[in-house]
C-alpha cells in the first residue's frame, strides 16, 4: 500500500471531475482537519474535485459511487466493520489516512487490555455498548489503495496523494526514516549528541522532523519506516540511553499496533522485570 504497490487504476485518472468523499471511523478528526487547514490549496483543489461527502466541512451528503475515498479512523465496532465494506464497494480508490486508519491509532492500546473490564469500569450498562475488543487498521478489513501515515497526517502529503491520483502518477511519499529529513535540514542528531531515545531511525518520514528540530526525540507518529529494524534500535537504546519503562510506552504510542512497533514493544515488555510496562 505504498507508492510502488498502487494498482493500475491509479494511472487512469477520471476524465471528468472526480468525486471525493471523506469518511470517518474511530478517530479524533485531526486528519480530516488537515484537509481543511490546506486553506489556499483547498480552493484550488475544489476546482479539480467535487467534494460530495465531507461532514467536517459540510452536512451535504451525496450518495456514491466515489472516485476517491479518504478514510480516517480505525475499526472498533461491529457497525464500522460493515460500514467500511460499504465504503469500499462505493469507491474507486480508497486512501487510508492517519495512524488510526493505517495502524489502529492510539485506541489500539485496548488490544493489550481487557475489553470487558474496560466496559464494566466505564459504562453503567456495558451490555448496550457494541464495540470490538480490538482497534484495527482499515487494511485489516478491506483492500486499501494507499496508506498515508501520520498522527496527524501532513497536509502537503495529503495534497500530494490526491494530486498524484488526479495526475495519474504514483504519490511521492518516501518510505525512508525521519533521519533523512533531519539530516537534509542539517539538524543536530539528538539521539547521538544528547543521548535522547529518539525513534527517528525507525520512523517513517513525512513530518519534516518536527520534534528533533526542537531537541526532542521522535516519538514515532508516522509509524515504522520501510523495513524498519526496531529490534536493533530497541536493544541498543536499552543498553545505552533508555530503559523498558521509557521504551515500551514510546513504541506503544499512536502506532502501537503497527506490526514492527508492536512486535518489538511486546518483546521489550517481556524483557522488563515486572513483565508489564509502567
Amino acid at each position: 500500500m505504498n507508492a510502488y504497490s498502487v494498482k493500475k487504476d491509479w494511472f487512469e485518472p477520471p476524465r471528468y471531475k472526480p468525486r471525493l468523499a471523506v469518511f470517518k471511523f474511530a478517530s479524533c478528526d485531526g486528519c480530516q482537519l488537515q484537509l481543511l487547514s490546506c486553506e489556499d490549496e483547498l480552493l484550488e483543489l475544489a476546482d479539480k474535485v467535487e467534494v460530495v461527502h465531507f461532514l467536517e466541512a459540510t452536512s451535504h451528503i451525496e450518495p456514491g459511487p466515489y472516485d476517491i475515498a479518504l478514510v480516517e479512523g480505525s475499526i472498533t465496532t461491529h457497525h464500522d466493520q460493515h460500514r467500511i465494506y460499504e465504503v469500499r464497494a462505493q469507491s474507486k480508490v480508497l486512501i487510508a489516512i492517519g495512524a488510526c486508519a493505517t495502524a489502529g491509532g492510539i485506541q489500539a492500546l485496548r488490544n493489550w487490555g481487557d475489553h470487558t473490564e474496560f466496559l464494566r469500569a466505564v459504562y453503567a450498562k456495558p451490555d448496550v455498548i457494541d464495540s470490538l475488543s480490538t482497534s484495527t487498521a482499515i487494511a485489516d478489513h478491506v483492500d486499501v489503495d494507499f496508506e498515508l501515515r501520520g498522527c496527524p497526517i501532513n497536509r502537503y502529503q495529503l495534497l500530494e496523494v490526491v494530486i498524484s491520483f488526479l495526475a495519474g502518477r504514483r504519490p511521492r511519499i518516501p518510505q525512508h526514516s525521519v533521519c533523512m529529513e533531519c539530516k537534509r535540514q542539517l539538524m543536530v542528531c539528538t539521539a547521538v549528541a544528547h543521548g535522547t531515545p529518539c525513534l527517528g531511525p525507525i520512523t517513517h518520514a513525512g513530518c519534516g522532523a518536527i520534534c528533533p528540530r526542537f531537541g526532542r526525540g521522535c516519538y514515532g507518529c508516522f509509524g515504522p519506516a520501510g523495513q524498519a529494524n526496531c529490534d536493533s534500535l530497541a536493544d541498543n537504546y536499552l543498553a545505552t540511553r533508555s530503559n523498558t519503562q521509557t521504551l515500551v510506552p514510546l513504541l506503544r504510542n499512536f502506532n502501537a499496533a503497527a506490526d514492527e512497533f508492536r512486535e518489538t514493544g511486546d518483546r521489550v515488555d517481556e524483557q522488563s522485570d515486572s513483565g508489564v510496562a509502567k
Partner: protein
Amino acid sequence: MTLKKVTDGTHCGKTFFIDKLELEHLIAHLTSSGYTVVGPKVEDNVIVYAEINNLADLPQGYREEQSGGQYRLSKSPNSNYFEFNLGPHSWKQYLFPPEAVLASAKRSGNRWEFDSSTEENGEFANKFAFLGVRACELAAIGVQDRVFAQGTYVDPIYCNRRSNSFLIAVNCTTAAATCFCTSMGTGPSCSRERENEFDLALTELDTGFLIEIGSEKGAAVAELLNSREPNEIELQAGKSLLARAVSQISKQLNTTNLRDILFNNLEHQRWDEVASRCLACTNCTQVCPTCFCSTVTDVTDLTGEQIERTRHWDSCFNLDFAYMVGGTVRNDRRSRFRQWLVHKLASWHDQFDMSGCVGCGRCITWCPVGIDLTEEVYAIRNTPPSKRSLPVQSSDQSKVCAVGKVRS
C-alpha cells in the same frame, strides 16, 4: 611585516606566524572580498558548520568525545579554537547542497519552456570561504571533485561553487577515538605532498597560528595579515602537536588488498550479522563527506504549470533507492549495507581510482547504534566465509591505494 616572495615567484609552501586575534582580520578580509565565511560553530552542544561573522562565532575552548553512536561536547581547560575534530556537518553541504534546483519547466499553452540555468550566477553568489577544513575533509573534497567535476559530464552547481571556494585548512592537533585518517593516508595534517589543495593551512599553537601558504590566492589574502617569520620554538611546537595527533589515533582500517577482499566476500555471513544491527536509517551516508547519491524529483505547484527539478541527497540505504519496475533491486538491509560498504571501500577504486573513505569516522559516531565500518571490515577480513564466495579477477594492485596518495 609583509610577505616576501620566495625566489621562484611563489609563496606556496612558506609558513608564517600570526597572532590568534589575526584570525579576526582574516575573516574580515574574506568577508569584504565577497566571500561568505563558513566555519565551526557550537549549536545544540555540537560543532556544526555555519556562517561565521567574527572570531567570537568560533567555538573557543571546546573538546569532543566521540565513539560509536555517541558524541559529547565539553569545555576544555585551554582556550584554543580548534581543539575539537569533526562534527556531523561537512563541507559537502555547501558544494553539493542537500537540496538544489537543477532545472525548471514552465508551461505556456501546450508547450513547455525549460531552463537549466537556475543557480545564482552573480559575483557574490555561492562564493564560500571554508574556515577549518581538516586534512581528511580536503581529501573528501578531492573525492567529490573526481565525481562531480572530473568525469565526462560535470555538475554545473558543484563546479561553480567549488571553483569559487577558498579553503583554509586546519591541521589536527588532537584526534577523536573514531578518527582513522592515518589508515586512509589522508591526515591528520594537510600536506602539499599529498596533493592536498588548500589556500591556507593553520596549525594552532597556544600562542598563535602557524600559517602555511598553499596557493597564490591564499598568498594574496595572507599578505593582508600581520605576520612574521616563525621562530624555531614555534616551528618545533607545531611539529610536536601534529605528532601528538598522530599518536592519539587508535582506530585502524587495514587497506591492503581491501578491494579484492570485499569483492571476494560478497556472500560473507558478516553481512547477515551486520544487517541485524543496521537500522538502514541513512545517517552514515548523510554525514559522509564523500557520499554523493542523489535523486531528482519534480516539485510542482498545484496548477502543474511551474515545475522545479529538485535534486536532494539520497542514500543507498533507502528502500526506494534501487526501485525498478517489478521490484526493488536491494530489498533487504543486508544487501543495502553491503552496497554501501563495498561501494565505499571497493567499487570506488574501479570507478574513481581511489577509495571512497577518507577515515573521518563520522559514520561511526553518527550511527545511532554505533556500527563501526572498521570492525566490519576486520570481521570480513579475519573470519573465513561460510557461504559460497565469489571469485573476482584480481585487480592491478597499484590501483588500490588510499585517497590522497600520489598516484603514478
